[in-house]
C-alpha cells in the first residue's frame, strides 16, 4: 500500500491501468483484513500460554447462577489447569439456537430437558455421554425421561454410535403441583384437597373470605403451562401424542385430537383461572413469586422451581405442595416431573477431556445433593437421600414411588405458540376456539415438517 497520502500526489502523472488495478486490489485487500478483524479469530483448541484450559459453560438457569459460581470455585481449586467461564443469559432457548446457527456450541451446557432440548439432541449437537463414569449413578427411571424425549441416533458411519445416545445427564429434577400457603389453609380451616370437588370448594372458601385463591401471572404466557401439563397430562388417553403424531397432518378428522380428548381438562383449567386475582393478566412471574411470598394468595399454580424464587423474596415463607386433584378419585393423583437441569457437552468441543472432568465433578453425589437442597429439586441419582425440604413434602412420595408423568408440553413442537394460545384461553375462557386452533396448528406444523418428533 502506498505510504503517500492519495490527496497530495494529484499532480503526479496518472498511473497506468495496471497500476490502478493494483491499487484497487490493495484497497480490497485492506478491507478484507479489516473484515477479518471484525469477525474475530476463533479461540485456539489447546490450553493457553500458562497451561490453563478455559471451558465455555452455558448455564441456562438464572436462579442458580450463584450455586454454579460456588461449584465452579470449588472445582477450579481442585483442578488448577481448568478455568470455567459461566455464561448465563436471559433467554436461553433462543440464545442456544442462535449459537447453533453460528456453529458455536459451548463446551459444557446446562439445559432444561424439554422439547427444545430434544430437538437439538436429535440434530446431534451434543456429545454421547453413555460411557461417562457418572452415567451409571443415575436413577434409570429418570434417565428414561431424558431418553424418551429423543436423542442423537446416527449410524456409526456418520460419526454416531449406532445406538441411541445419551446426550444429557440429569442433574436436578423438578415436580409440578399446586403450591399452597399452609398458614392461610389453617386459618380458614381448609384441608389439603384430594378431589376436584374439594379443590373447587377450597377456592370458594378463600374467595368468600376475601383471599385470592390463586395468584395468576398471565403477563408471562408460559405460566399458564403448569396447569395445562397437570390437567391435560392426567386426563388424556394413554399414548395420546404417539397416536396424534401417527395421524400426520389431518388431526381434525382423526381418531384422537385435542378437540376430542382435551375438552374436560381445558374446562377445568378455565375454571381454575376464574379464581385468579383481578389484575392477573398484567402481572408477571416475578410479581407472582413476590405476592405468594407475602401471603397474598392461598395457592399458586407453579412447579417446584418457583420455591427458591419465592424464598428469595421471603426466606421464611410458609410453603407447602400437593399434587393436582384432577378427578373425584383421590388415588388418581400424580405429580408431573421433568429433568429441570440436564448436563451436556458440545459434540465437537476441543476440550472434551476437561469438559468430562467438569461434568463428572458436577454429577458427584455431594454436589448434586447440595444443589437439590439449595434449589428445592429432587436428586436424580440412584441412591439419593429424599429431599427433606418441607415445601416438597407433599410431592416427594410421588417422586420416590414413581407416580409421575412427564411434561406433556415437551411433546408439542416449539413452532406451535402453545403458551400464547393458553394465555388467550385463560383470559377469554373460550375452550372450543383453543382446541380447534391447537388442532389446526398441529396439522399445519405436521404438514410443514418432514421430521416428526419421536418423543413419548
Amino acid at each position, binding site marked *: 500500500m502506498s505510504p503517500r497520502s*492519495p*490527496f497530495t500526489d*494529484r*499532480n503526479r*502523472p*496518472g*498511473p497506468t*491501468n495496471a497500476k*490502478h*488495478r493494483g*491499487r*484497487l486490489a490493495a*484497497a*480490497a485487500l*485492506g*478491507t*478484507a483484513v*479489516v*473484515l477479518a478483524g471484525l469477525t474475530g479469530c476463533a479461540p485456539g483448541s489447546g490450553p493457553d500460554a500458562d497451561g490453563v484450559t478455559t471451558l465455555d459453560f452455558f448455564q441456562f438457569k438464572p436462579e442458580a447462577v450463584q450455586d454454579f459460581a460456588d461449584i465452579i470455585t470449588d472445582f477450579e481449586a481442585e483442578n488448577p489447569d481448568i478455568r470455567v467461564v459461566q455464561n448465563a443469559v436471559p433467554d436461553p*432457548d*433462543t440464545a442456544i*439456537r*442462535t449459537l*447453533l*446457527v453460528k456453529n458455536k456450541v459451548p463446551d459444557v451446557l446446562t439445559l432444561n430437558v424439554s422439547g*427444545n432440548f430434544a*430437538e*437439538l439432541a*436429535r*440434530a*446431534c*449437537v451434543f456429545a454421547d455421554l453413555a460411557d461417562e463414569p457418572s452415567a451409571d449413578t443415575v436413577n434409570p427411571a429418570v434417565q428414561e425421561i431424558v431418553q424418551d424425549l429423543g436423542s442423537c441416533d446416527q449410524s456409526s458411519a456418520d460419526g454416531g454410535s449406532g445406538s441411541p445416545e445419551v446426550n444429557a445427564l440429569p442433574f436436578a429434577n423438578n415436580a409440578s403441583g399446586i403450591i399452597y400457603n399452609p398458614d392461610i389453609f389453617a386459618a380458614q380451616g381448609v384441608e389439603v384437597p384430594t378431589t376436584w370437588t374439594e379443590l373447587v370448594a377450597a377456592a370458594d372458601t378463600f374467595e368468600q373470605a376475601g383471599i385470592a385463591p390463586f395468584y395468576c401471572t*398471565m*403477563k408471562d*404466557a408460559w405460566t399458564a403451562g403448569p396447569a395445562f401439563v397437570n390437567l391435560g397430562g392426567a386426563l388424556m388417553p394413554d399414548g395420546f401424542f404417539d397416536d396424534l403424531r401417527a395421524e400426520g397432518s389431518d388431526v381434525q378428522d382423526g381418531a384422537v385430537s385435542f378437540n376430542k380428548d382435551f375438552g374436560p381438562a381445558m374446562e377445568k383449567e378455565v375454571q381454575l383461572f376464574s379464581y385468579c386475582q383481578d*389484575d392477573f*393478566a*398484567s*402481572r408477571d412471574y416475578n410479581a407472582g413469586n413476590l405476592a405468594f411470598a407475602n401471603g397474598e394468595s392461598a395457592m399458586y399454580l407453579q412447579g417446584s422451581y418457583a420455591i427458591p424464587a419465592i424464598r428469595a423474596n421471603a426466606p421464611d415463607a410458609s410453603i407447602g405442595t400437593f399434587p393436582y386433584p384432577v378427578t373425584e378419585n383421590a388415588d388418581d393423583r400424580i405429580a408431573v416431573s421433568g429433568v429441570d437441569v440436564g448436563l451436556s457437552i458440545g459434540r465437537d468441543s476441543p476440550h472434551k477431556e476437561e469438559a468430562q472432568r467438569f461434568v463428572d465433578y458436577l454429577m458427584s453425589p455431594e454436589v448434586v445433593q447440595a444443589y437439590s437442597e439449595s434449589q428445592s429439586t429432587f436428586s436424580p441419582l440412584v441412591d439419593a437421600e429424599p429431599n427433606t425440604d418441607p415445601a416438597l413434602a407433599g410431592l416427594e412420595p410421588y417422586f420416590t414411588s414413581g407416580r409421575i408423568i412427564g411434561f406433556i408440553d415437551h411433546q408439542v*413442537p*416449539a*413452532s*406451535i*405458540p402453545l403458551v*400464547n*394460545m393458553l*394465555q*388467550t384461553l385463560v*383470559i*377469554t375462557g373460550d375452550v372450543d376456539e383453543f382446541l380447534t386452533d391447537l388442532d*389446526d*396448528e398441529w396439522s*399445519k406444523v405436521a*404438514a*410443514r*415438517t*418432514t*421430521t416428526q418428533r419421536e418423543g413419548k
Partner: protein
Amino acid sequence: MTATAPRPTTDAGPEGPTRASSTKRAPTRRAGQGRTPRAFYWMVVPAVVIFFGLHTIPVVTGMFFSLTNYAGYGTWSFVGLSNYLNLFRDDRVIASYLFTFGFAVVSTIAVNVISLAIALGLNSRIKFRTAFRGIFFIPYVLAILIIGYVFNYLFANSFPTILQSMGLPGANILADPQWAWVGIVITTVWQACAFNVILYLAGLQTIPAELYEAAGIDGASSWRQFRSITFPLIGAYFTINMVLSFKSFLQVFDQIVALTNGGPGTSTESIALVIFRGGFQGGEYGYQMANAVLYLFVIILVSFIQLRFLQRREASF
C-alpha cells in the same frame, strides 16, 4: 435489498478512454484531467466490500435456505417452493401480516398528523422555541426497547391507578387481546414523532417568507395559507416521511417485544416477531426465511407504490 453496487470502472474516467474516442480529442491533455482521483476509490471500495460481506451475502444465504427445511442447525434437504406455498396456508402468518399493515397504517397517519402539527408550532414565533425543540427531540435519542419497558410499566401500574382515581374504568390495555395494539401504537407514536418533527421543521425552513407576506396582503386566512402554500411546498418532505415511517412501522419489532411479546395470545404478533420466533425459537429456520423473503418484497413493493403515488402530488417552485 441486494443493491448491486456499480463496480468501479478501472478506465481513466468519465470520457472513456477508448481509442475511438480519444482520436477525436486534442492529443494534448493536461495530466490528471478527466481522471478520477484515487482517493475516491479508497472511499468507495471498502464500503462496497463491507456492504457485500455483511449484507448481501447473508441476504443471498437466507434466500437459499428458504428453499430448504433447515431447522437452523443439523442437517437439511431441499424442499423446493413448498415453504412459500405453506406460508399462504398459515393463518398465523396471515394474521401477522394483517396486524402489521393495520398497525403501520394507523401509526403512519397518527405520527405524520401529530408531527406536522408540532412542527408548525415549533416553526412559529413562540417563546422558548429552542428549548421546546430540544424537548421534543428527546424521545428520538432514547432506545425504543427501553421506552417499551417504561410504557409497559405505565400501562400495567400507573395508568390504571390514575384512571381509577378519576372514577373511570382502569385496566391494563396490554392485557386485553382486543386493545393491546392501541398501547403499542401509543408508545410507537410517542417515540417516532420526534424524528418526523425534525424533518418537517427542515422542510418548513425552506419556504420563503415572502410567500406568506404576499398571501397575507391578499387576505388569505392561515388555514388557506397552510393549504395552498405550506403543504404543497413541503410535499417532498411529506412524501419521504410517509414512506420512511410506513417502512419502519412495517418492520415493527422492539416495542412489541418490550410491551406484549406478541400477546396476549398471538394478538399482537408482527411479521418480524413471527419470523424471529419461528426461525430462532421454533426450529423452522428455512420456513421463516421464506417468510422473510416474501416480507422483503412486500416492503419494497409498498414503498415503491407509495413513492410513485405521492411524488405526483408534490409541488415545486
